[in-house]
Every structure is written in C-alpha cells, then in structure tokens.
C-alpha cells in the first residue's frame, strides 16, 4: 500500500467521521462513532496497521497525518459532546422548573419585642458616644431610690400612692427610677464614669392607655473633670439626631428634679410634622423626650466624690414613650399584652 493511498484513506476516514458526527443525535451516537473510528477495533486502528508496510522514512510523516486526523475527530467529538451535555442539562432544568411564586415553607422567623428594639437602639447610640452599660436591682432600699438622690423626707414621690413598698420592710421598695444605679455605680467605681443603665421601674399608677404600674427607663451619667451643661446639651442633641435618624431641632427647658441642678427637660422638634404641629405632638410641634441636668453636688458628695473636683451630668428617658413615638403605638398596655397580633408587627 502506498503512502498516498494511506493518506487518502485517512482523509476519507476523517470526512466520514465528521459527517457521521454531524448526524449524531445523542451521546449514545457519539459513543458509537468513537468506537467505530477511534476505538481499539476501529477504522483508524485498522488503517494504521498498514503503517508497518511503509518505508521507515515515510512513517513519521504519515504518523503525523494520522495524529492530526485523530485529533480532529476527537476534538469535534468532544465539542459535540459538550453540546449534547448542555442541551440535556437544559432539558433537565426545564423539566425541573418550579413556580417560584408559590408561598414559602419552613420556619417562620419570630419577632423581637419593640421595647427591646428601642432599648438596643438607645444602648447602641450611647455606646458609640462612649457610654458603658450598667445594671442594678429592682428591689431597692429607700436610700438608693430617694435619700441618696437628694429627695426630701416628705417628698410626695415617697408616698405609697406613688411608690410600691414590699413585705421585706418599710424601707424596701420597688425602685421608681433607674437613677438608683447612678448611686450604686458611683459608690463602687472611681470617676471618670460614663454609663447608661436601662431597666424596669415601678410606680403605683392606675392602668390606662398612658400608664402602667411598671415601665422602663434608660438612665445615663457622665462624671469627669470639667463636665459642663454645654456638653450635656451637645451629647443629648447628638442622641436625638442618631435616634430619629435626622437633624431635628432640640430645646432645653428649665425643669426641676431633686438630684440634678440645673435641670432641664429636653424637647425635640416633632419628627413627624417637623414642628408644624400634628396629632402625635398634640399640635405643639415639640415632643418631650427626656429629663436631664447637672448632677447635684449633694449627690456627688453623698457617694464620696468631691464636687469641687468632679462634675457631671445625668439624664433619664422612658423607653415606652420613645417606642410609642417611634412606632405610633397609642396604648402602653399593648407592650405587656403578649398579643401576637401586636408582637408580629415588629
């Protein structure tokens, strides 16, 4: 057999293979074609058997041609295979198509209580302003709840009409303010001190849409050298900006608390009407947010901090009030109802 004849056979073989490949319908056809042309007992092998009859010098050249033919068939076969694989995948995917608009299944996530969310917001904001978090007991002595906070012995807040007293003794009560924690921390830790103290407080008040015998406050305190009223204003205005997420005007109105002096009530521009007057702010344009002031020197000296050396400010806010404002809740009782119709809205 001549080298030319062999070359021609190879070309024919290549053309035949490519022609068959072009007619292949599926992966099984491809496998047949592979076996027919490239398999151990395939056509290429049988042609190459003729190689041994060739002149030694011709063999490399024909070997090269044979390899090219083999590669060409192989590549074309692989390309075809890829084509089939992706086509079959496409068919499979089409068969597996689902209606993604069907409703979800599986666990439905629960909800976090609105008072938690507001408390966490407040803690986050003050943490970013450098305040730690401290806690204290709810069952307290009248010393921590009143005396140490500069509350006169005959102050009306001490009445049993305002404060709950307990079976543990006439001086043991349920704290009516988180300010108790101020004293407990100042007794134990040395200034500079900067912390807030969220917690539950109790007051003997008839239950209605605005009042509940227990509610929650966040108390804050900063004692350092050179703490001023201006810093109180700056810090709390910053809190308002961060809490409501917008620039709101604030105003500090003089007020009176036994444990701060000078004292102030902080109002902020109503975030809903921006001061124009609406239902939420009672058409005043301002919302009362919190009480604050410079810590009374008597409170500082009471816990052994020299008021000539140190000064500080303190503030306290009602969490329910802020939550009612933020979410438009109109009745404080919702917070303690455990009603899923309420809880699932948050």
């Amino acid at each position, binding site marked *: 057999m001549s080298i030319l004849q062999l070359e021609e056979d190879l070309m024919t073989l290549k053309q035949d293979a490519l022609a068959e490949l072009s007619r292949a319908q599926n992966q099984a056809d491809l496998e047949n074609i592979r076996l027919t042309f490239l398999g151990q007992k395939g056509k290429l092998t049988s042609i190459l058997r003729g190689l041994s009859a060739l002149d030694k010098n011709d063999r490399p050249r024909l070997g090269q041609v044979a390899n090219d033919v083999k590669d060409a068939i192989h590549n074309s076969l692989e390309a075809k295979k890829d084509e089939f694989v992706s086509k079959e995948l496409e068919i499979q995917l089409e068969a597996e198509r689902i209606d993604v608009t*069907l*409703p*979800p*299944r*599986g*666990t*439905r*996530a*629960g*909800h*976090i*209580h609105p008072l*938690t969310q507001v408390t966490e917001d407040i*803690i986050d904001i003050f*943490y970013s302003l450098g*305040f*730690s*978090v401290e806690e204290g*007991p*709810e*069952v307290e002595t009248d010393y921590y709840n009143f005396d140490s906070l500069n509350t006169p012995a*005959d102050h*009306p807040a001490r*009445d049993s009409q305002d404060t*709950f007293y*307990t079976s*543990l*003794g006439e001086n*043991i009560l*349920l704290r009516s303010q988180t300010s108790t924690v101020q004293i407990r921390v100042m007794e134990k830790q040395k200034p*500079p001190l900067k*912390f807030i103290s969220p917690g539950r407080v109790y007051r*003997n008040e008839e239950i209605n849409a605005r009042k509940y015998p*227990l509610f929650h406050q966040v108390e804050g305190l*900063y004692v*350092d*050298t*050179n*703490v*001023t*009223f*201006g*810093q109180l*204003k700056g810090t709390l*205005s910053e809190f308002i900006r961060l809490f409501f997420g917008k620039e709101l005007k604030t*105003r*500090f*109105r*003089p007020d*009176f608390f036994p444990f701060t002096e*000078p004292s*102030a009530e902080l109002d902020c521009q109503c975030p809903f009407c921006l001061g124009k007057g609406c239902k939420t702010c009672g058409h005043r344009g301002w919302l009362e947010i919190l009480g604050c002031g410079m810590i009374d020197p008597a409170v500082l000296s009471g816990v052994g901090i020299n008021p000539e050396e140190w*000064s500080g400010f303190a503030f306290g806010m009602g969490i329910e009030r802020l939550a009612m404002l933020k979410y438009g809740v109109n009745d404080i009782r919702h917070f*303690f109802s*455990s*009603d*899923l*119709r309420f*809880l*699932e809205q948050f």
Partner: protein
Amino acid sequence: MKLSLDWLSEFIDLSGITAEELADRLTMSAFEVEEIQTTGQEIIGPLQVGEIIEINQHPNADKIRLTKVKIDSSGPLVDIVCGAGNIAIGQKIPVALPGAEVINRHDGSKLLIKESQIRGATSRGMLCSASELGIESTNGDGIYILDPATTLGTDVKELLELFQDKVLVVEPRSNRGDAMSVLGMAREVSAILKRPLKLPEFILPIERDDNAIIASIDDADDCPFLSLITIRDIHVKQSPRKMLRRLSSIGLRSVNNVVDITNYVLHELGQPLHAYDLDKIKGNKLTARKAKDNELFKAIDGKVRNLNNEILVIADSQCVLGAAGIMGGQDSEISADTKHIVLEAAAFTSSRIRRGSRILGLSSDSSIRFERSVDRGFVENSINHAASLILKYCGGKLSKPSTCGSGSVNEQIVSLRPQQIERCIEVNLSNKEIEDLLKPLSIIKTKEDSSIIHFSIPSWRQKDIHREIDLIEELARLHGYDKIKPSLPKSFVTPKRRDLRIALVREILTGYGLSETWISSLTSESHDSTRSIKVLNPLSPDHQVLRTELLPGLIDACKYNQDHGFKNIGLFELGRVYKHNPEMQQIPQVEEELRLAVIASGELSFFNWHQEGSAPPTNHVDFFFLKGLACNLLNRLSIPAKNLEFQPGTNRLFHNGQCAAILHVKNPNLKHDDKANKLTPLGFIGQVHPAHSRKIDLRLKAYCLEIDLDTVFNLRQDLAFSEIANTPQVQRDLTIDLSNKHHYSEIYRTIKQCGGKILKNIDLVSIYELDAEKLSFSCRLIFQHRDETLKNEEIDKQLAKIRSELTNKLGASFRA
C-alpha cells in the same frame, strides 16, 4: 395652674406682649405653658345703660311688649321690642343699639343688632339678658337688671367687664409653691421681661375694736404662725363683677362675696385663707392643734370624717371647725345669713398638711399650696389684703387682728463664686450682670468679697434657694438655656465591652420561630410563698407579688393567644425573677436572677402547603424540638453538648412523664457523685402539665422550658481547637433489644464508656417496639483513630466489648 393675663396685668405691665410670646418665654424659663385658653365672649358696642320709661302690649302678639327706653337724659326715647317677662318700668338695663354685636342665646352665635320690624312694630335695639352678654347670672333667661344707681348711658362693656381674657395653663412645679399665684408668676414675668412689679399696699384701716377672736397655737412645730381677723356686721351677697369674671376665667365657681374673696386672695397671692361664721364659734379663741383620735369633723362637702392625731385642725373651745390648710367645716361655713366673720390665715408646715390630706383623702387649692410650702413672711400681708377687700365689698367693722407665733423669717444669705458659673454652664457673667439677673427675683446682693458675692434670699424662695448651685440654676435659666453653647466632652472614656449574649439568645430563638414578649413582673400569686416578695400597697390583686418564675406568665400568654384564634404559638421572655433570701448579708436580701422561658405549640412555620402526591411536611413542636433548641442555644452560649444532661424530673407546671431537668455536668467522664465532679441545675423543659392547662382552659398542647441564664453565663467555657483527623471513619450499625424500663441515656453512656478512644460518635437511628415490655434501638456508631487507619478486627473487638457490657449491665440482647 391657670393664670389670667388680665389678672396678671394688675401686677405687671404686659403691654406689647402677646399671650403666645409670654407663654413661650415662661416655657423656656421653667414654667411650661401647656395651653392658652380664651375666656369670655367678644361683645361689640354700642351697648349702653338704659332705663325703661314705658311698657305697652304689642297689638299683634301676646308675649311681646313694646318699650320706650331712655339712654341719654336729654335725647329722645328709643323704641325697643322685648319678649322677656321680667321687665318693669324704672329698671336700669343693658341696651344693645344698632351696630352692636352680642350673643345669640339660642345657639351661642354672634347676633348683630339692627333696626327691625317685629310683627309690624319697629325695634331700634335690644334689651339684653345675661346669656346675650356672655356672662353668668342668677335671674335666668330674663333681662339682666342693673343696679338702680347706675348712671344712664354708661358703656355696659366697661361696667360689666365684657371683654375676652387669655388664660395660660401653667404646669405647676413641685419645688415652687411660691409661684402658684398671680403674684408668684408676676415675679417670674418681671424677671423675664425685665419690667417692674406693681405691688398693692397691704394696710388695714386704723379704726378697729378690741372684741376679737384670739389666735392660739398648741402645736408650734406644725403651725409656726396663725393670724385671725374678726369683722362684724358684713353683708353676704354676690361678688363684684371683676372678681366674678377673674374667678370664672380660672375655672372657679362663685359662692358668695366672703368666700369668693378668700379664694380670690388665695389665687392672687398664694396664701390660703378661711372665713368662719363668728356666731358658730364657741368661746373667743381659735386654736391650731392636732386632732384627737376619733374626733369627728364634718367638712364643707357634707361628709363626716374620723380624725386622728396626725391631722392638724383649727378648733374652738369645743369642737373642730376645720382641717387646717385642707378644708373648712360645714357647721361654721359662711351662709347667706352670716353677719360676723373671722378670717384665718396661717403658716402650716408642708409635711403635716400632706399627711393630713392623704389620710383624709381630701385635696384642695389650699392643701396643694401648703404641700408645696407657703411663704410665712407673707401671711400678714395676705390676710390684710383679704380683710380690706371684705371691708370694701361686704362692709363691716374691723376688730384688732390677733396673731400667734411669728410671721417673719430669718434672713438667709447664700454665697456665690462667679467662676463656678462658668465651670457649670460655660457662660462668663460679670458681677454686674449676675446682680441684674437676680434682682427682679428680690435676690439682693448684700456684700461682695474678692471672689464671692453674698445674696439675701427673699422669704418665698428660701426653701428652694439655699446653696450656691441653686443660684447658678437661677442664673442659668434667667440667662437662657438656649444661649448655652452645645459641645461634646473633650476627653474620651473607653466604655466597657458590651455583653452581647442576651442579644445572641434573641437571635437564636427568633430563628426558631419564637417571638419575644415582655410580661409584667408583678403578678397575682406565687407558689413559692416563703421566698416571694409581696407588695404592701398593691394596685390590684393582679399586681401584688413579684414573680419567682417566668413560666406561669408565659403559659397565660399562650392561653391569651389561643383565645384570640392562634393555634401556632411560639413565645419567649427574657426577664428577672425575684426571691427573698434571708441568708444574704446585703440589703435588700433579694436574689434577682435573669431567666429565659420559652413556650411553643403547633407549628412554628409558614403555612406548609404541599403538592398532591407528596407527603405534607410537618414540623409540629414537641419535646424533642424544644430539647434541640435548648442544646443549640446552650452550645452557642459556650456550654458543650457533652457537658449537658437531661434527666427525668418533676415540676408542678410540667407533665410528669414529659419533663426533664437540664443539668450541667462539669466532667462528663466522671460519675455524678464523684467529689471532683460538679452538677449545676440549669432549668426545666417539658410539656405543660395537663392539669394546669385544664385549670386555665389552655386547650393547646404546649411545650416549654425555663433556664437560669445568669448560671449559664457563669459556666461559659473557653473553646479550644483540636487537630483535624484525616484518617477514614468507619460506620457500624448496632441493634439493641432491651426492657423498656431502661432509658436511652443508659445505653448511650454504656456504649460511650466501653467504646474507647476510637468511638467518635453514637447516633440513634430508630426505635422499634418489640412487645409491651421490650424495645429495640438501632444505633449507628462511628469509629476513627486519630493517627492510623482502623483495621476491621480492632473495631470488631470493640463492638464485642460494647455488646457484652450492654448485656451485663442492661440485659440487652442482639439479633443476628
């Protein structure tokens, strides 16, 4: 407190200031104005005093009469048609002439007076009734009959003070009793507006007799000063128009001229006063003393009250005439027949009045002022002012005033270091500015040293200004809080790290489909009566004791939602419980523990729709769902699973057969009773006891747990990495048949103990009930050696050992 601006202008010039401006200024200087009200009606003239000269019947109407009215003595008579029945010739009456605007008595709208024809008769004006003038009167719907002495043609608007007044509703300040009066607010306004205060003179006529009722004090601690003024031969009648109008503008009803004057002075000067009917007083002395126990007293509200020795009273020689500073008595009150009176004004101590007011359950304009403290230095001025008004409007003869105790107070000096102002509010005020700010409040400089200024405090401010800081506060608010520049602290204090574990608990539990709730920690009852803390003065039986556990509240919450149609309920609460511990050294002897409680029922999932032909997916909550939750939660709180045990337990709230105590075992490789080991109870988990469910009508099957989080947080273990083994794992299944008396935990522990180091894991695959007494457990064991590939023989050897131990210990058998 209501403040009439017309009344206020008696003390200070308010020209050029609107009510709104004044309200803003007051709000920003410590007296919050909650509301601005308008009182009185807008009446427009011409409205003049006329006299009825002639009355004729209307020819065409029975009830209508034609009058001729004289307004101007020289002018013509005016024809006015009138329908009222109470008119008579010679009466002086208010006449609205064309162009006037009065009030339509039928609907309160404006009524413009025009010349008109009424059934053919011409009317050139209107005779007015009280309601048409917007005022109150005793003679009903008839024409308002004026005093016969009134001059013809007088402007009725001025005569009857028919104008509008603005009233500020001011939030009272607990530390500022001195400001609860027109005068007190005038002092504030004077300081704010920097306008001078106009004070009346408090002088009594010199003409007086010696026949006075004598003031006497038994209890000087509670009544340091008592002042009485006796006035005889007075006339009790209606109060003058101005007084009526002012009292009405602040919401007070008129009684008679004497009582109205005491109220008027109380609201004007802040000093409570009381007037007694002299003829009802036995003896010639009124004494301030403590009541005797069980002494009876009938207050002006007509109720008889039983007194005790904590209540201060004013008494004559025989009985109690009044609860001092709180309310007068009915028997000695001023009536239309009263001829002679005794006026009383005193300084009572605030704590005594507060106590009495609470005991009696009585509060009055008088008691709320005494509770906030009344200016002892102003008692005499006030009673003199009231006596002058009585002489002016009720007539009468004055006796010599009688006083007991002292009506003056000591001078109070407070020193101020000006540099302290700057330290506190960062405002630099000159000494002159300081003086000028304080002067309008009658806080007067007495002396000035190198760096200290001394101020004398007026009697009415001595209670709230006695220290330097009190003066700084006054200066800060008078200077204006809004003028203090906001800044941020100059130094930074590093905050302590936040403990985020509770937040983590919330995230995990909401991931399980549970919603957070907050429940009242005051509850109706506690099962642990020895350790529970009761409220002595509870608001209601539902709020009388502090909870000692969270679950009862949560079970009630579950029932509440069941009753509102929920079948799938998942709730949790993070909160404190409170227990009395008499062993504790510190006071209060109370342990406040942070707990977590969970309750779940039904499916905590979206609505699980399914495709026809495939099984509907179910994930009903059960014991093991909750157990898985507990394990995962505790693992995330750094308690490894190997240290946790769930032991069959009992708890009154839980189903006996479905309840486990959750235990932390310090060393799971040691026996529980080994001295080196330590067991810590963490809480309970199980199904709500059906008996409890039945009791509260909870029809859902609910599972719950309660965990002591403080304990869990204290047990936190540090995690440590162990090298990952790359050797192959071998899985072997083991089916164990044994009596159902044994717990799975026994099987688990036995396998674990003799599995040796190469036993990596034991999984329960299934349980099969062989017969009424026997169960079959299929377990899958995983073996792995850290360093080398295990040979089958080694595993077989270990399995044989496990089998024989299970047989020996638990009587287990194995099928081929």
